[in-house]
């Protein structure tokens, strides 16, 4: 190809946070897709970005990458606004929103060569390495037309890694992958995070977020309903208990009328509820008096799934 310019070496502001959004709004005529979102992704975070479908996650990520213009507010990547400074704001940043897209009539390697050319010459030397990381080297010369969804997702990661990112923005990277593919994707993200890459991970896979992320933002109907450490969120969720009894239906009735017992539900593995320890003692007496035998009563922290639904289904 034409000229071979040196790789990007312009300094990135080390002090500025990887992602800082303030009052981000996106309106499509009457539809308010994003409603004053603030985000703070810190260096080294594996930051989960959660929300139901249509909550505004992808729109927010597109604004972060400069693909769509905010109606109001700003988003900065390492202190630079992609809307104001263009491609320079994406220095040290890579990733994909929704499914990664490539040219189906080109091979995997040629697709990466194209993207490397658009990144600068340094990226070209990393093609073999990133193909190896995502285990696509044997298929490098094959056209993308014949690639499975999982292979395209992995190529999306490879394309992101070409830029030696300090911030990786991934939108549903495990969507459409089989269980083994999901496991491999998680392992890859964990490895990248261990190498010091800050990861902003938008996901529907709550176990994935719980496993990988240390901080989260939960969005619902365009607004952030929680932002902070995942551990704090789980702590705020209160102490939870799981109960298995000889008569779950009767036990559920008693749970719902017992003072100090909240959020009693019947799940796949018995009953769950929240309560203070002192109230649990009173509950066990009540169950005994009602001839409901306790098979198991175990304390457990609220899962991210519990908290997610509690925050988004109100």
């Amino acid at each position, binding site marked *: *190809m*034409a*000229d071979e*310019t*040196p790789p*990007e*070496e*312009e300094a990135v502001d080390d002090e500025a946070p990887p992602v800082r959004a303030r009052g981000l709004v996106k309106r499509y005529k009457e539809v308010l897709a994003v409603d004053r979102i603030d985000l703070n992704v810190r260096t080294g975070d594996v930051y989960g970005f959660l929300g139901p479908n249509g909550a505004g996650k992808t729109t927010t990520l*597109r604004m972060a*990458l*400069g*693909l*769509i*213009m905010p109606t109001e507010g700003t988003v900065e990547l390492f202190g630079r606004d992609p809307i104001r400074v*263009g*491609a*320079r704001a*994406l*220095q040290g940043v*890579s*990733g*994909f*929103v*929704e*499914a*990664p*897209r*490539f*040219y*189906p*009539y*080109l091979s995997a390697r*040629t697709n990466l060569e*194209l*993207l490397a*050319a*658009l*990144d*600068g010459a340094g990226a070209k030397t990393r093609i073999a390495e990133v193909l190896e990381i995502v285990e696509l080297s044997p298929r490098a010369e094959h056209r993308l037309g014949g690639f499975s969804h999982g292979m395209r997702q992995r190529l999306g990661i490879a*394309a992101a890694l070409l*830029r030696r990112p300090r911030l990786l923005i991934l939108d549903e990277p495990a969507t459409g992958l089989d269980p083994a593919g999901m496991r491999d994707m998680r392992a890859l993200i964990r490895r990248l995070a261990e190498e010091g890459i800050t990861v902003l991970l938008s996901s529907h896979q709550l176990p994935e977020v719980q496993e990988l992320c240390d901080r989260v933002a939960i969005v619902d109907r365009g607004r952030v309903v929680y932002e902070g450490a995942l551990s704090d969120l789980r702590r705020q969720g209160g102490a939870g208990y799981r109960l298995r009894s000889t008569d779950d239906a009767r036990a559920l009735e008693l749970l719902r009328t017992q003072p100090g017992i909240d959020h009693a539900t019947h799940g796949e593995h018995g009953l769950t509820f929240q309560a203070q320890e002192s109230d649990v003692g009173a509950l066990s007496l009540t169950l005994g008096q009602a001839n409901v035998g306790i098979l198991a009563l175990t304390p457990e922290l609220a899962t991210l799934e519990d908290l997610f639904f509690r925050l988004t289904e109100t």
Partner: protein
Amino acid sequence: MSPSTLTVWCWELRKLVSQKRTYLGLGLAAILPLIFVIVQNLHQHGGGRDENIFASHITQSGLATPVLMLLFMAAFMLPLIAALVAGDIVAAEDGNGTLKTILTRSVDRGQVFAAKALAAMTYGAIAVFLSAAVATIAGIASWGFNDVITFSGSIVSAPEGLLLVFAANACYLIPLLTVVTIGVLLSTATRNSAASVVGTVGFVILLYIVAQIPGIEGIKPYLLTEQFQSWQGLLRTPTDWAPIAHSAWVCALYGIPALCAGYLVFLRRDVAGG
């Protein structure tokens, strides 16, 4: 340091080269002169009623063939071929979702737009010169590399005739590249390949219809379609530069706003597809 626009342009060409549909237009540009020469060879002895000076001298010199082909293809066929790629070049990437892929690399939107517009223009120019080259080679192979007549009736030597053929095709690029800018604008604004290609061709047809409306002859010299034959000034003795100069500024009136509008739309638009 960001990659240069030249790098982006090279990759735009590489993408065009890798797509089968690119060859549809180029195939048309190459095959029509061949069909013309074959048909002329088959009917060599039935002529004599041709209105055009080159048509009546078709068998005198192979260099008359590219001139006749340009006369024939300039009005519609070459604009159609150029529109096939110009209308597709942004919209197809929008539809496939690859626009977001390239816009999240180290190149600015302005560079991507410039590279795409240049690639579409390059394609248009290749189609024109491919058609001219095939017509010239086939014409010379059939009727020889002989002196050729001009529109004024004077005779020019074969080498000079060849140079004039090249210059005429280069001159024709002015209105053709203007069609390309309109195609690129529609491709950027509509985000739909079919609508952009049809829209570009439709615009050309519309101008031909406007040219036929009685009572508005005054605007006829300013219609883009009227510029498609301005190259003929080169094939007169002495060379008539007036239609070429007129064509240049009229085309600028169409092309520059189209290009600027396309650029601004591309710069500010949301890339929400894919």
